[in-house]
Structure formats: C-alpha cells, structure tokens
C-alpha cells in the first residue's frame, strides 16, 4: 500500500509546495508603496536587450539608450535642436582652402603670375573696393588670411586593385608639387572657388595640368593619369575645420580627466578596420584629428561635409582603458591572441566607462541593466540615484507592469493612449517621432514610371482616416522626406487630397479606363500589381490591407504579401524586385538625403530602391550636403522638399506620434541661487523631447503643488 500512498501524497505535497510560494511573493502594492528606495530609481522598460555598450560599435536602439546615459559626446542638441556644448565648452567652424598656382593661366589685370605676386594681388583685391561682383566681395570678406605654401617634392606609393578586385599592384609616383596659396576663411563657403573665378579668370583651375607634376615608372593610360592627377594634386581643395575647446574638469567615471587625446582616440578607434565600427561612413570625410593642447582638438575635413558637426555627439571613449597597451594587457589576461584582439572583443563593452551622468553597475543578460548616478558628473549629479533598464519582451506585459507601478516608462502603443490619458494617476506627453511611413513605387516598372499614376494611387487612399482610426489620432500627415519638427520641413506643401474621383480622372488621362466589370485596364491589360511589406509590424500590415481595399474600390487588382524581414530586404527590396512597398524611414536631424534620393544610389543593395532620378534634386542634395549655413540649408531643403512632393515617388502617408506616460509624482526639481527648492511640472520642449531635463527629475511621495512657469 506504500505505492498507493506515495501515488496520492506525492502530487498533493508537490502542489502544496508550489502553491504556498504565492504567499511569499511581494504583491505589486508592496513593491511600489513599501519600498522607499523605489522613489530614487527610475525603471524603464524595453522590448530588447542591449548588445554592445560601446557608442562606436553599437547600432541597436537598446544599446544606444544605455550609451546615452553612460557616455557623453563633445556636443549634443538643445531643446531647439541647435548644438549645445557638453564635453566641449565651445567650438569654432572655419575653413582652410588651398589651390595650386597655375603658372600658365592669365589672370585678368595681372597676366601670368607666381605664388607671391598672386597672394599680394588677392590681398590687394580684398582691400580695395574696386571689385564689381557682389558674390566675390562676399567671399573675399570671409578670407582672413592668405599665405603661400612653398613647392615641394615627394613620392607617393599607391596600391591599386585590378578589375577583379583582388590582385594588388603598387605604383610609385614622384610628385613635384608647385607652390600653393593657402586661404583661411572665418566661415565655410561652398562657393569659394566658384566666386574666385571672377577674380582669377574663368579658366584658372580648369587649365591647371596636374599631370605635368607627376612622374611614374608604371605604364598608365591617359584616363588613369588624369584620375591620379586629380587625386594627388587637385587644382584646389577645401578643408572645413572644427576646433573644439574641451571643458576643463570633466571626468570619466573612473576618475580620469577627459582630454583631447581621448577625442582623437575615439576617432581612431572608429576608423580602425579591426573594430568594424558601423559608424565609419560618418567619419570617413575626416582628414586628421590634431591635438593642439590637452584641452583643444582640431578636426580637419577632406571636403565640404555639413553633417560633420552632428557626428561629434558620439560618446567619448576613455583612451587609458582601450588603447593598444590596455588591450594587449587584457588579451594576455584572457589568454587570447593580442594580435587579433580588438575593442570589439574587450570586456569594456559589458562594463563601459564614460563621462555621462550615470555610471554602469550591472548587466544581467535579457533581464536588466542597472546604472548608478555618477556623483562627479560635471553638470552636477542627477536626482535619481539609479536608472534601471528592464528587458520585458512583450508589450502587454510591459503595460501590466506599468500599471502595477514596477515600471516608470515604456513604449506606449497608440491604442493604449486613450486609456492612459484618462487615468488621473498619470501625466502624458506626446510628440512627433523622427520617421515616417510611406508607400514606395518601383519607378523602373510600368505603370509607376508615370507621375499621373503615382498621384492617382496616392489620392485614392484616405490617409486622414488611417490616422484617425488605425493610429488612434497618434499621427500627422507628412508631405516630404524631412523630419516634420525641424526647420528643413516645408510646411507650405499641401498633402494630396483624398479624391477617388479625381484619381480616376487622372488615371483616365494616363490611359487607364474602367471596363464593364469595373476594373481598370489599358489596351486590354488590367491594372494589377503586388504590394508588399514586412511581417512583424502591425501598423504596416493595417496600411497594407487598407491600401489594397482602397485601390480595389477604384478598380485596381492588388495582390498583397507580407514577408519575413530579411527575405523582404535581401530578396525583394535590395534586388529591386517589387511593384510597391509599404515601409518606413527612421530619420536623423541632419537633412542629408544622399543615400535615399540621389540618382547614383539606385543600384541593387542601395537605398534609393524606388529608382528616383531627378537632376534638379541631385543638385540640391549635393548643395545641402556642402552648405554650412543653416538659413541657406533650410532654403535649399524647402526647394528639394517641393520637388520630391511634386514627383510623388512615394505616397507619403504619416509620421507617427510617440506618447510617453509618467506617474504624476515625477516632476522637475529646481534649486535657485538662494538654495530654495522649486518643483515644476515636466513640459516637453518645442521639439517634443520630454526627457530633456531628465537629470533634474525627481519622484516625490505625493503629487506636489506645482509652480507653473507661466
């Protein structure tokens, strides 16, 4: 009978043991109310775990969230999206430009001239007001210094790849470079040399024969000669310079002071091929990074590249922990080969040290990352003692944890907003996100090569209804490729109207007519195509279904497909094998549209996969890239926006709104000069950034009386 007893009692015992554990688990109430330390920590929820806590290596959003707290860049953006000094106290942007003296060219009013005469001629032109051309006056006024660089002779070895891309061949060149004129400008001027032509004569640069100054044993075709001449002694060169003055007294979290060497080291680490940094393309235009003194760093660029400034918001790495010596020691300690050991392998990526407001504490994979505040932070330590990043991979669970009070913030889904807005316990913020959703058409294919068809397809979709019902009002219409909250966005452009009748008329003018069954056809061929999107995004899937239905209404036969992400990208988008696609872009603040809209980027595996080619747009994209003046840039962007909106390569749908919900007890604490404490309600900045004053946030036991800023 023992068997019988065991059989009956074992399960009962097990069940009891398991169930009694319930009484030991702290309920949500106990967790949030009973624990005073809970007020001093901020707990954020995230869907995914971080991968590498190193700003130069990481590319995922979870890692950059954490890196933003642990690391600090030279600059960042303030509440109006202008640059603001962080590790850098101040900075200066100016330009150094060079051009080779062309002895054969005739300068109007001077004739052939050598370097010295040319320099004094230019200085003279600067002083006298005899110059007629206003553009030239403008340019000359910007020049602060003109000097002569003496001729020099040197050799260059160039290694080239043959057409197969493998065999390396080296060519030695002997360069006898002639004298150069060096110009220093107090601000960057992309039209410098164009305007100087008014002074030096139209052919001055064109007639410069760089080939004459090159000598080589290798046999080269004329074409190759011209190419190398252009590369090795270009007639002129513009080098924008960024000069950063580093704030004294900024410290890494291990106590080391931050200095110019760390900045240079960060740049070198990015460019080191061993590290495989995904950010190389941002820093490729940098020529050199020079340490002028421990608190001054000078960054010289190879060419005009206006997005350059923004790239220096990258977190500064501590040199003393990651330079070759430190890495070698670490490699030996871990028993790895020091030759192949790079920053990528270093344990630093799981125990980062930066100079940001929070210092790394622990990381339990797929569970949480804990940061403690950094007491020596240069701007004063944050009010929260602790920042916790919890990884909760399910949206619904996040919501439940938030309600229970064990999360302070999470990604609120559009359909949850209404519920949370009405809850008196919470305050909520919302703002436009940096990204938009669109339907892109493959312009290489018929009938999408016809502007009328693209417009008609756009007019058949009721975007306002999508925003109202699918996004629950959490979105706005968008008409072009720039972030809507930046100055670059052209608010003068009207969105396409919802007008199915008009769409039908447009289609009719393009030759598409309705047949007896109500289907559109042209020369007996029905209007038929496939609309695709990726799986895993419910909003895009909804847009897909709505667009299909809307187009069906005007007689177009649309087939839809939802594909797994990598198949979608690799097999369809990057092979240009699609008719139309529902997709979204995440944008930065910089208005650089080169990769997405420039006509040279239309090949497979490039991002202009819709095949948009427009001469005027190309010209503007390049100009925007080279323009350092904000007002000028805005003007150019508005023009570009108008062109793209006119051409409708995409049906621009909407830009989503994010919503953040916080406990009402979280407020901003301000201490004025007299030491009096004041609490303010958290208000988002003009661009919608509500975490802008995060370091001043505090959670109080009760909702306080708030002094409104008025």
């Amino acid at each position, binding site marked *: 009978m023992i068997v019988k007893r065991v059989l009956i009692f074992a399960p009962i015992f097990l069940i009891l043991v398991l169930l009694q554990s319930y009484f030991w688990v702290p309920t949500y109430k106990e967790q949030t109310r009973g624990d005073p330390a809970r007020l001093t920590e901020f707990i954020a929820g995230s869907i995914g775990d971080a991968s590498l806590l190193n700003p130069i290596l990481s*590319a995922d959003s979870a890692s950059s969230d954490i890196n933003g707290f642990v690391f600090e860049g030279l600059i960042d953006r303030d509440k109006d999206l202008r640059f603001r000094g962080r590790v850098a106290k101040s900075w200066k942007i100016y330009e150094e430009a060079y051009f080779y003296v062309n002895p054969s060219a005739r300068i109007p009013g001077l004739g052939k001239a050598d370097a010295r005469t040319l320099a004094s001629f230019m200085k003279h032109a600067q002083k006298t007001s005899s110059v007629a051309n206003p553009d030239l006056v403008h340019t000359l006024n910007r020049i602060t210094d003109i000097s002569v660089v003496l001729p020099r002779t040197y050799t260059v070895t160039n290694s080239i790849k043959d057409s197969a891309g493998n065999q390396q061949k080296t060519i030695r060149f002997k360069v006898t470079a002639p004298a150069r004129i060096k110009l220093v400008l107090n601000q960057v001027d992309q039209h410098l040399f164009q305007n100087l032509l008014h002074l030096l004569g139209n052919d001055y640069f064109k007639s410069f024969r760089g080939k004459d100054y090159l000598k080589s044993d290798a046999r080269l075709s004329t074409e190759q000669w011209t190419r190398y001449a252009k590369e090795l002694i270009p007639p002129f060169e513009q080098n924008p310079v960024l000069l950063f003055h580093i704030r004294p007294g900024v410290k890494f979290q291990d106590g080391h002071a931050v200095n110019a060497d760390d900045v240079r080291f960060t740049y070198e680490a990015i460019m080191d091929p061993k590290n495989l940094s995904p*950010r190389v393309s941002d820093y490729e235009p940098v020529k050199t990074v020079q340490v002028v003194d421990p608190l001054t760093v000078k960054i010289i660029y190879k060419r005009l590249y206006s997005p350059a400034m923004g790239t220096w918001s990258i977190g500064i790495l501590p040199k003393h922990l990651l330079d070759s010596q430190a890495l070698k020691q670490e490699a030996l300690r871990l028993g790895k080969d020091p030759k192949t050991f790079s920053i990528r392998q270093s344990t630093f990526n799981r125990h980062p040290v930066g100079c940001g407001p929070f210092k790394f504490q622990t990381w339990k994979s797929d569970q949480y990352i804990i940061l403690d505040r950094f007491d020596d932070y240069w701007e004063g330590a944050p009010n929260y003692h602790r920042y916790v990043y919890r990884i909760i991979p399910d949206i619904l669970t996040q919501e439940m944890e938030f309600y229970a009070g064990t999360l302070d913030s999470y990604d609120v889904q559009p359909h949850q907003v209404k519920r949370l807005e009405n809850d008196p316990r919470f305050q909520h913020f919302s703002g436009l996100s940096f990204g938009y959703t669109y339907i892109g058409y493959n312009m290489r294919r018929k009938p999408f090569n016809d502007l009328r068809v693209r417009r008609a397809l756009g007019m058949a979709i009721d975007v306002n209804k999508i925003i109202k019902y699918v996004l629950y009002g959490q979105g706005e219409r968008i008409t072009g490729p720039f972030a809507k909250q930046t100055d670059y966005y052209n608010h003068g452009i009207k969105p396409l109207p919802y007008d199915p009748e008009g769409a039908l008329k447009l289609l009719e003018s393009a030759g598409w007519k309705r047949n007896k069954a109500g289907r559109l056809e042209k020369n007996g061929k029905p209007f038929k195509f496939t609309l695709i999107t990726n799986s895993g995004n419910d909003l895009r899937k909804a847009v897909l279904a709505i667009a299909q239905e809307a187009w069906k209404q005007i007689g177009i036969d649309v087939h839809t497909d939802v594909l797994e*992400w990598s198949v979608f990208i690799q097999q369809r988008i990057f092979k240009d094998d699609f008719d139309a696609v529902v997709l979204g872009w995440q944008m930065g603040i910089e208005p650089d549209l080169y*990769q997405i809209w420039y006509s040279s980027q239309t090949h497979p595996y490039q*991002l202009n996969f819709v095949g948009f080619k427009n001469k005027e747009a190309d010209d503007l994209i390049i100009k925007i890239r080279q323009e350092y003046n904000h007002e000028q840039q805005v003007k150019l962007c508005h023009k570009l926006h108008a062109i793209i909106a006119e051409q409708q390569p995409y049906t621009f749908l909407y830009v989503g709104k994010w919503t953040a919900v916080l406990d009402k007890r979280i407020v901003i604490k301000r201490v004025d000069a007299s030491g009096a404490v004041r609490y303010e309600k958290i208000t988002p900045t003009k661009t919608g950034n509500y975490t802008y004053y995060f370091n001043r946030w505090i959670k109080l036991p009760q909702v306080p009386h708030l002094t409104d800023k008025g």
Partner: protein
Amino acid sequence: MVSFIGRSVVQKTITLFFVSIVSFLIIHLAPGKPSQVNPLNPKFTPEIMERFRKEFHLDKPLYIQYIYYYRDLFTGKTVSWKDNQPVLKKIWDRFLNSLPLFVVGTLITWTLSFPVGIRSAIYRGGIYDRTATFLSYFLISIPGFFFAYILIISVVTHLHVPVIGMETFGIGNGSVFHVINDRIWHMLLPSVLGATAGIAVLSRYVRGQMLEVENQDYIRTAKAKGLPAAVILTVNFVSAILVLAGTFISDLLYLVADPRIRL
C-alpha cells in the same frame, strides 16, 4: 552485446554527422544573415557590410564555412554575432535558467500523471476515466499561446502579483527563504504550462501501459493464484514505470531543446 553497442555507436555517429550537416544547412538557409548590420540604416554602406561579411567568413563557400564552424566549435572559439560573447557560455547561462523550469515541469508531469493514469486504468470506462480522458485531451488541444496569455492576465489582474521574469524585480535583499519561494512562484506558471501537454500524454500512456500489462499471462496467473489485488497493482505499476523510464532520457533532452514548450 559488445558488437551491438559498437554497431549502435557507429550508426549514431553517422546519424549525428548528417544531423550536423543538415542543421548547418538549415541555419544557413534560414533568412537573416548573421551580422550586427541593419541594411536599411543609411549609415551602413555596402562597403561596411562587405567588411562584416569578410570578418565572419560569409564570403567563403559553404563547405569552408562548415569546416570553420566546427573548428571554432571544437576549439571553443564560437562567439556571438550580436555582442561578441562566447556562445557556449551564453547557452550554458540560459540552460541553467531552463533547467529548474524543466525539472519542476517534469516533477509535476510525473507525479500527477501516474495517479490519474492508474486510476483511469482501474476504473476503465467509468465516469472518472471519461472525465480524465476528456480533460487530458482538453489540455492537449488548447493552443499554448492562447492558454498562456489567459493565465498570465488572470494571475496579474486578479492576484496582483508579478509572474514574469525569474524573480520579483529588486527582491535581492530578502531572506533566503523568501527568495527561494519567490523563485518557485515565478517558476510555477511556465512549468505548469510546459507540463500540461506532458500530463495529458503521460497519463494516457500510463493508462494504456497498465491495461497492456494487466492482460499479460503472468498477471492472470497471479490473479488465479489469489494474490492480493494490491500486490498485483504494485507489480503492474513497477513494470509500467520501467517501460516509461526508458523513454525518459530522450524526453528530457527533447523537452529542454524543443522551443515549443516556450511558445
């Protein structure tokens, strides 16, 4: 005996070899190329992607990749694409998390399904048997993802205690007893969910096995000799458990490795 073991080892090795090839091919065929690069981010130029591919030998032919893979595997140099952590360590960490879940799940399965199965066998065809049959098929038939959602939501909204994660967040400084019980609570839901299908299948199996054994001649003889029913039941039970234990080891591995129990 020796020749049997030897042959079986050879056969298993060959099978394993083919498994390794097929699994390598499946991973390779599966969409999504291993790298940290998001191709739709304008910051990633094709050149960078090319460099990543080179670094991870993705530009080499397949069989070379296969050889690299096994060289790395046996020299212990496998490293995750995502965060440069050693893969074996990552797997081991997660295995340690799965193990208690699995142990508790198996315990629940085994302790519950035997009484249920045996009782069903004894009262075959009765109300109890029919109810048990119905319930176990109910548990097999309920879609796991649906059931889990309902369970989680009802526990959180009605009992107001957390159910996700391995422990209540921030419990760190409680007493040992507290912490252990907290762990047990967090293990309860997933292991019960993992065990539901197991209970259903195993109790059916026990029932069938009992009936099978009952028909054997030696049991009939025992009955004829007038052995007490309890002894017969015990013999019956032991033989059933022996048969089932044979499948235990393979079940164990299967349950740990099968992602469906985590679905």
